[in-house]
């Protein structure tokens, strides 16, 4: 089991940040959904409880995904409403039904054997169905339930998706029928083979079990759930209940696809450096029309990466300095954070992220990033943006964060000279530590190709974006005491700098330890 977990958690274990002991992660996957196929349904799982060891202290919230990933519009409202509907129920009830982590490893995808959600299966039969199916399923009358689409799409009808394929998607999409079946006949589709062979299943702890089956708990669940749902820090980051990655059908609607073709064309023109005659940009170069036309694509990517946000409600209103770790071969963390924040916190001005010169002045990419909202990192720009009440995102690791090899992923580099602390002090705004997990595996830096001639330090050799799941955690805001005077106190600046770095480090390790799989 241990081996499996390691595999599941991080197939590239070497060099990864240390992880907490397995025991703390109570995660169960209703695997039925992932792999169930019609044939499988015929096979009845004989059995029994296979809950993982579930810890009450660390509840998992399966359905966070739907919240984070669903269709953009009414952010707050959705966040509030949703959890009640499906997500919270399971967690409130207990962990028994959490999706198991076993499935996360990429190898799984290749595995023809259907993993049934064994543990839950048992329970399912006996219990009210809702709990077992993915959270969204249970609450949601709409049949998108078990379908692969459920994971990513929340409530989008799966029907209009054209392109089935995806280069990057290693994992086969679960068959829709079976998924549906899940909702209807809970107990039916569990594949026994896996269960038998899988050692993990056997060590289900009794409590988990009982928790899972308690009808009372389930009933109570909805009320228990707080209206606004911010996953507590301890919650495991599992949202995998349904399907793994879904690139194909559900990511992009036809309209979205058409719009994004236009967006991509605009982006390519920006990359070349030849914008349109009617291009309008704001004072810092953001082209709102381009951003709008790229919106469907950004939404699709967010679903593809199943971006989960934690603590986004804690980002203070008005200006603030969001400090995040930089990761991956391509600087996609900035735009993604910007996009997620814009959707979740419409009350804030769209956050601008500051880009180091190596990226900002790199041909092509620099222009494109500037058009979608990046600003060159400089104290003057930061102060000006803050004065305009715009939250700014900084990556104090700078280019070092992007140029570290994959083996050193999630190892924070030096946080510059703490310039962002001085800026926050001078502007009198709080610092919000942000940990981003997922970028390193989405676009791993495999090699650096020499590219001096192109005017960039190196050309990163990476893969097409892999479907790693992303987690973005916003920490408690740190207020810099002392105002502008603090900015000149180098010792204080260094101390705060280290403090922020440590905070992000802890958040990263926490996210990594709670994540039950890369993909």
């Amino acid at each position, binding site marked *: 089991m241990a081996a499996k977990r390691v595999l599941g958690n991080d197939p590239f274990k070497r060099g990864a940040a240390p992880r907490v002991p397995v025991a703390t992660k109570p995660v169960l996957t209703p695997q039925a959904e992932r792999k169930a196929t019609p044939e499988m349904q015929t096979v009845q799982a004989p059995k029994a409880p296979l809950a993982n060891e579930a810890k009450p202290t660390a509840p998992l919230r399966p359905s966070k995904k739907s919240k984070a990933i669903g269709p953009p519009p009414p952010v707050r409202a959705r966040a509030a409403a949703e959890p009640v509907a499906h997500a919270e129920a399971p967690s409130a009830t207990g962990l028994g039904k959490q999706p198991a982590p076993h499935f996360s490893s990429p190898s799984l995808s290749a595995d023809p054997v259907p993993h049934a959600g064994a543990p839950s299966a048992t329970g399912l039969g006996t219990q009210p169905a809702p709990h077992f199916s993915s959270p969204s399923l249970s609450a949601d009358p709409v049949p998108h339930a078990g379908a692969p689409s459920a994971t990513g799409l929340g409530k989008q009808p799966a029907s209009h998706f054209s392109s089935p394929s995806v280069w990057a998607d290693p994992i086969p999409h679960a068959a829709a029928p079976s998924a549906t079946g899940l909702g209807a006949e809970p107990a039916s589709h569990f594949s026994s083979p896996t269960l038998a062979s899988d050692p993990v299943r056997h060590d289900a702890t009794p409590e988990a079990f009982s928790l899972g089956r308690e009808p009372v708990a389930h009933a109570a669940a909805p009320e228990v759930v707080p209206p606004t749902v911010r996953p507590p820090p301890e919650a495991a980051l599992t949202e995998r209940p349904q399907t793994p990655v879904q690139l194909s059908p559900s990511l992009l609607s036809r309209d979205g696809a058409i719009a994004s073709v236009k967006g991509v064309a605009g982006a390519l023109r*920006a*990359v*070349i*450096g*030849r*914008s*349109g*005659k*009617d*291009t*309008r*940009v704001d*004072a*810092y*170069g953001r082209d709102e029309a381009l951003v709008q036309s790229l919106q469907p694509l950004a939404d699709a990517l967010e679903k593809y990466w199943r971006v989960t946000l934690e603590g986004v409600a804690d980002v203070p209103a008005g200006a603030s300095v969001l400090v995040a770790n930089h990761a991956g071969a391509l600087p996609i963390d900035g735009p993604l954070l910007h996009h997620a924040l814009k959707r979740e916190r419409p009350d804030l001005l769209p956050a601008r992220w500051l880009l180091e*010169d190596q990226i900002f*002045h*790199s*041909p*092509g990419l*620099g*222009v494109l990033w500037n058009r979608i909202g990046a*600003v*060159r990192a*400089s*104290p*003057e*720009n930061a102060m*000006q943006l803050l004065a305009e009440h715009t939250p700014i995102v900084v990556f104090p690791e700078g280019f070092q964060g992007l140029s570290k090899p994959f083996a050193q992923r999630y190892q924070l580099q030096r946080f510059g000279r703490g310039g962002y602390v001085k800026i926050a002090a001078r502007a009198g705004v709080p610092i919000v530590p942000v940990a981003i997990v997922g970028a390193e595996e989405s676009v791993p830096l495999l090699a650096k190709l020499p590219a001096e*001639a*192109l*005017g960039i330090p190196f050309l990163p050799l990476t893969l097409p974006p892999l479907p790693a799941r992303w987690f973005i955690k916003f920490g408690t805001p740190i207020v810099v005491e002392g105002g502008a005077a603090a900015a000149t106190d180098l010792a204080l600046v260094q101390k705060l700098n280290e403090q922020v770095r440590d905070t992000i480090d802890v958040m990263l390790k926490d996210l990594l330890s709670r994540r039950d799989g890369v993909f």
Partner: protein
Amino acid sequence: MRVGLTGASSDLGRLLMPKLLADEQVAEIVVFDVTRPVDLPERVKFVRLDLLRPGAEADLERQLAEVRLDAFFHLAFVNSRVHRAAFAHELEVIGTLHLLAAVGAVKVKRLIVPSLTVLYGARPNAPAYLPESAPLHPVQGIRFVSDRVEVERQLAEFSDRFPEVEVLTLRFAPIVGPTSNNPFTRLVRTKLIPTVMGFDPLWQVIHEEDAARALHLALHTKARGVFNVVGDGVAPVSSLLLAAGSMPVPMPGPILRSAIAAMEAASLPASPWALMDFFRYTWLADGRRAARELHFLPHVPVHEAMASMRERRT
């Protein structure tokens, strides 16, 4: 109020003149030039002056003492195409030297001189918006810029030395408009313009009417010092060029660079590579001081200003 000016036949002088004539507070206008500009209105007084002649400062000093001016616009800068760079250098640098000597001697109350935001240079490490305090950087090989940097240096020295003279320096973004003729408008009127592929920096321009208005506002403001005077909005350079009817042709940087090197080696007229920085990095100036203290707000949005280049009236 008596107002004197040099360079009355320059673009800015030509645009400013009607505003001065319409200004009720301006009692007398005195134009200093080598020849009387054609169509100069009758009520404008003309004084012959050759700023290039050795001893010009003594002439000017005597003439200034006679007319007792309240404000002086020094607009005699070469913006049209020059075939003799030495002449332009003499006029701009030495001419300004003479003029400053005379103005300092007779203590004209106010001196207004136009300058350029191009002087900041396009630099990778510049902030998004350059304040007036940002250092100026001459561009290697571009006389048009390096001479004006020298003029600004003289002005800064002058205003330190003669604090009783109010010196206002207006750094204009590239001035565009149907009647303007300066290096920038000549660039924009080229059909095909090579740009650097993968770069599309933001540019500012200012419409000629707005520029003239800012110059006129400088006559009455209480403020002094340096002002960035920029148009309304910014836009990627490729978008601006397209709006003006020309065609930006992005060329890969290394190819462009070698092409320029080859042309220089062959003694063909070529834009120096240093000029290409303006197509790679932004060089936007922060115009908020002018808005605050000159009360100058541009009227013509950037794309409209560029589109006005299509109608040519020169």
